[in-house]
């Protein structure tokens, strides 16, 4: 009899431990640079659908998003960059929310006290976040180089840019000047087509240069020149991770389908905030498949997101 009781107690204990090993959260959706650290492993990437156990920590990067589902089914979003303890998030989920009856009461009170829709004109200073104007460059520099604002340069690969050709002279040549951020000349080249590939800068270390400043001017028309465009070196802490992921990713891409390869690379770059490289890939893509509507539509959508004007 005693042995039976001991066996039952042991069985109950084992069951309790087994049932207690369920997850705290699962990842519903993830975007950006999000990491997880568990009790048995160091920081690593988070995958959608993965289970997160109690005692773990998560880190949400800048401009990143993490959607979590608690073991109870409740959901929460983590959008603010930072490091979070899973146990703290779990407590937050369990204490949030109110009943239907109390929500109804709050809803009625809010509307009865006029807290629903304020007159924005009476509080105009709180409601002036948008303008009716657009940004324009000065009129002196007529040559536009098609580069997204605040472009970061990861490397000289997939770093191809172009500019609007001289409307007065279709056969014009251009002088491309590339300086570093200390305004020391890296290269000056004359090209006959309205584009330039930074891959031609062999042996250049972008980190050493701290970035590049590009200027293009017409060889024949003194009045047709560009402003200086800066490409800052990408020096974020996750640079090595991105380089490593990029190299690994390139090995998985279809080598025969150049267009698809560039399309996927464009998305990879854009997702990592490297719009200059994304644009370079889109440009190559359109050269390869100018008639493809999907690619054209994707390019136009990208142009809008990157704040460029579509041609």
């Amino acid at each position, binding site marked *: 009899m005693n042995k039976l009781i001991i066996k039952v107690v042991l069985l109950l204990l084992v069951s309790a431990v087994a049932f207690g090993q369920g997850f705290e959260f*699962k*990842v*519903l*959706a*993830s*975007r950006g640079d999000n990491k997880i650290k568990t009790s048995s492993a160091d920081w690593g*990437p988070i*995958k*959608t*659908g*993965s*289970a997160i156990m109690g005692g773990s920590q998560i880190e949400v990067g800048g401009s990143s*998003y993490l*959607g979590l*589902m608690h073991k*109870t*089914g*409740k*959901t929460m*979003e983590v959008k603010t960059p930072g490091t979070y303890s899973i146990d703290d998030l779990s407590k937050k989920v369990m204490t949030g*929310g109110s*009943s*239907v*009856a109390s*929500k*109804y009461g709050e*809803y*009625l009170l809010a509307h009865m006290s006029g807290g629903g829709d304020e007159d924005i004109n009476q509080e105009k200073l709180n409601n002036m976040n948008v303008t009716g104007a657009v940004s324009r460059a000065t009129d002196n520099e007529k040559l536009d180089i098609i580069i997204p604002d605040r472009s970061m340069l990861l490397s000289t690969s997939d770093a191809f840019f172009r500019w609007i050709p001289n409307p007065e002279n279709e056969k014009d040549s251009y002088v491309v000047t590339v300086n570093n951020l200390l305004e020391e000349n890296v290269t000056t080249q004359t090209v006959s087509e309205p584009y330039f590939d930074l891959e031609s800068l062999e042996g250049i270390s972008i980190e050493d240069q701290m970035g590049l400043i590009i200027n293009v001017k017409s060889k024949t028309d003194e009045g047709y020149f560009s402003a200086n465009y800066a490409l800052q070196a990408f020096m974020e802490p996750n640079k090595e991770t991105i380089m490593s*992921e990029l190299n690994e*990713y390139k090995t998985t891409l279809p080598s025969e*389908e150049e267009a*698809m390869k560039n*399309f*996927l690379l464009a*998305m*990879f770059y854009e*997702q990592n905030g490297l719009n200059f490289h994304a644009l370079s890939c889109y440009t190559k893509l359109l050269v390869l498949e100018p008639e*493809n509507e*999907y*690619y054209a*539509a*994707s390019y136009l*959508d*990208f142009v809008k*997101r990157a704040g460029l004007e579509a041609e």
Partner: protein
Amino acid sequence: MKGKLFWDSFLGTVFIFFLIGVVFRFSAFGIFNAFDPIGEAMSDIEITDIVFSRLRETPPADTNVVLVNIGTLPRAGIAEEINIISKYDPKVIGLDCFFEDFKDPFGDSLLKAAIQNAGPVVMASRLHGCSEAKGGCDSLGGSLPYFTEGIDLGYANLISTATSQEKFKTNRTFAAKVRLKGERAEAFAVKLARYANSLHVQLLLNRKYPYEVVNFRGYGGLGGRFFSLDVMDVFTENFDPGLIKDKIVIFGFMGQDFSDKSWEDKYFTPLNPDYAGRTNPDMFGVTIHANIIAMILNKDFIGVMGNTTSIIWAILICFLNVLLFNVIYYRLPLWYDGLTKLIQLVEVLVVFFIIVMVFHYFSYKINITLGIVAILLAGDSLEVYQGVGKNTYRLLKIRFQKRFKL
């Protein structure tokens, strides 16, 4: 006295419904509509929209469905997504997209091969020539037979006032089945749900409603209640392998990527936080299908009060109000205006509360609009009845008696 009170209240109730009918007729000419921006804005909301968007407890996430964004991928890209996902043994793959013409031989053939090799697949189709007069639809279209050969189809049509895809679209309901050339065709979401739980699907199809109210659970993508994979997540296989196994995976458009604020293929739904007036559409079509599947698999069906029941309740509520107001009229005439207004206000709040609670706890939609209108009109209309109606009747009665020397 009691008999007089009963008949007085009965006739008062008839009078109120007569007034409602007159007002309805008058407003049917649309005289007020031109100057009624509020009415226009409110015309497309229902009381239960407020429950969905503001009042109910947040429903739990659903784990039966995984949404996969196809973005603006070309066909070869979608084929690759299908190939990757199908490696992980989903229960079924749903393609909420149409391939209506040939694009390029390479991409088309890759896509066809991917669909054929993916295991169980349901493709969205489109009903044509539907009308109530015919009691069904004429045909089913959508993707080319080149892609759909041997593949299960389910119509993706949703109930909406929009006459074409690019117009303003609101969705609250769907038809689980329709008659198609004499046979039964099932909705896309219903077909997908069958793979997971055919019993629940049969329970749905056995219900007596000609349409079903979608019990919206939530959105997909960022801020959603469904597992969601963006384009890059799929290509980099940045997901847990167990996420896909034995799940219903639906491929559809959810923006260029999850951060895209595109309105293409987006509907206005009751979950929209701005439930009245001008606002942005809030839910992609593919996510509506996911919500329908979640509703079926969790048996979260919503019952709807029929028109006959609604009218009976309206008459009963009106009669009881008139009875009470008549008592006040005769016994506390000085208090009539104030008391009736107060009672009407409290009643309306209580009725709304009951509607909200019944909808939340019993998933039953009480349709009591007529009853609410009757409550709101009861106080003043009864005064008109007592003052004008009954006096007019007495006057006519006296004249009639004098005329015919009775």
